[in-house]
């Protein structure tokens, strides 16, 4: 039985002469939390860009739910249910927090100009989406900023907004790029809580890029280690520590409790 939701097979991409990802192979199981770790410049974010379609691979295939997606445009991939957040959290600063979330609403009739002449359908959807957006803002705890410009949010709040917006897009699989970097410990708790709820209630699949090893080891079902554009290890969190290649490339002699 194949319960892999995502399969990355021998994917490579070069920028100029630099092979950012060089024959990476990995997979993600349905409903799991998989983390990608590795030193800076290992190709983690590039791997994310390849999966989300922002970058096109020079070779290799990426299968999502059995379909090849490596040639699809980013919005098509998002339409299939792979929704990502961004390293450092990207918010649309000159839209309100609520409007940022509303961007995530899928199949909005109002996005189609023809429906300008169908205000009933537009307004009904808009109202429903607004309620859903407010509920999500409440869930991540930034509902009091709903009508403020997103540009006023702090770094951590932007991460929460980025996450809530991704959830608004009804993902099947969430790609989170360094969700915990630069976030204070209480907020990390909050994020973990949200992720846990999503996992148990909505059976989402998660793929993370993260540097905070302790968090990674705690929440991941599987850890993929990248270095120099390749996957050098892939396994259960605990097995990673025993892998000599990982220790050499990333962990060093540092020991975790």
């Amino acid at each position, binding site marked *: 039985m194949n319960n892999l939701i995502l399969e990355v097979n021998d994917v490579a991409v070069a920028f100029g002469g630099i092979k950012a990802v060089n024959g990476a192979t990995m997979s993600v199981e349905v409903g799991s939390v998989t983390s990608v770790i590795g030193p800076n410049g290992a190709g983690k974010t590039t791997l994310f860009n390849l999966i*989300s379609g*922002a970058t096109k691979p020079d070779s290799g295939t990426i299968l999502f739910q059995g379909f090849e997606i490596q040639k699809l*445009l*980013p*919005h098509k991939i*998002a*339409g299939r249910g792979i*929704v*990502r957040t*961004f390293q450092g959290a*990207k*918010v*649309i*600063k*000159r*839209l309100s927090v609520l*409007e*940022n979330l*509303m*961007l*995530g*609403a*899928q199949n*909005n009739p*109002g*996005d*189609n*100009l023809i*429906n*300008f002449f169908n205000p009933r359908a*537009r307004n009904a959807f*808009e109202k429903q989406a607004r309620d859903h957006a407010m509920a999500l803002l409440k869930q991540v705890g930034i509902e009091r900023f709903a009508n403020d*410009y997103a*540009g*006023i949010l702090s770094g951590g709040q932007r991460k929460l907004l980025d996450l809530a*917006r*991704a959830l*608004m*897009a009804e993902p099947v699989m969430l790609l989170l790029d360094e969700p915990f970097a630069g976030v204070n410990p209480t907020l990390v708790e909050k994020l973990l809580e949200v992720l846990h709820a999503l996992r148990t209630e909505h059976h989402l699949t998660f793929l993370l890029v993260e540097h905070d090893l302790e968090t990674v080891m705690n929440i991941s079902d599987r850890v993929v280690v990248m270095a120099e554009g390749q996957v050098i290890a892939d396994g259960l969190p605990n097995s990673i520590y025993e892998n000599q290649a990982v220790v050499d490339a990333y962990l060093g002699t540092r020991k975790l409790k």
Partner: protein
Amino acid sequence: MTAILQPGFWVFILTMSGIYGIFTLGLQVQYGVGGILNFGHVGMMALSSYTMAILVIAHGFNFWIAAASGVAVAALGGAFLGLTTLRLRGDYFSIVSIAFSEIVRYVIFNSDGLTGGAQGSLAIMPIGDAYPSYTDTWDTILYWIRDHLTPIFGEIADRDMAMGILVWITLGILLFIVSRVERTSWARVLRATREDDDVPSALGKNVFRFRLQAVIIGSIIGGIAGIYWALQVTLLSPDDFLTIVTFYAWMILILSGATKVKGLAIAAIFFGFLYGGTRFFTFWPFSFFDSSQRSYMRIMIIGIVLIVLMIRRPQGIFGKREEMVLE
């Protein structure tokens, strides 16, 4: 100094303001909502007005069909410009758009047989022996309106006043429609794209489609302005469509505050008075210049106004500061 007292002169100014207002509204959709810097907007006006004139004069088309075709050609022009160059990022699109409008103008200038070339629409070969005019149908309407205005305004009521009224009704309707369009989620996605492409596309929005639609809608509105332009000047010339016309519209847009439509009409009137009013600058120190030199004063004054605005009120008279300052 007598012209300043003539109501006809002010009617003329208001009519031109209205046409510029319509023209600028097209830019507002593109830039104010979508952040698309189009410097070739005047090309759409040229396409629609010349298409209409040629169809009526040379092919005997019904005016309404010709006008609709003119606007359709402007829309196609926008689609062509968008499809070929919209994938270019920001500044590059702007440069190509200037080239586009200049190409349109040069083609008009050099296609003597089709457009009348440098002599303008006067030299378009008419069908039959008719005098080459495309305003006949419109004039009928204008005179009908004038006849109904005369009881109210007396002698002042004339063809030009009727024209001004129709222009402003059109601008009012378009302002209303556009302000409604800008409340849809379509416009929200466009507003997001003016800051960033990655976020909307990661959320499943085809950014290119939204931008292309914005350019086409702006071009349609520019095309409507072109029809009114043609009807107002009654004889078209390639020189009507210099790049400076696009920049006049930019001035109106910046003056009104690009992100909101509500100031646009007032900014257009302000521009109209500045544009037409400089001829009355006969007092010191302008008295040192002769009238042809004074006509260049308006470009200088417009420049000064823009500089002052940029320093004191970069969001425009009616714009929202916060929306610009958040970077």
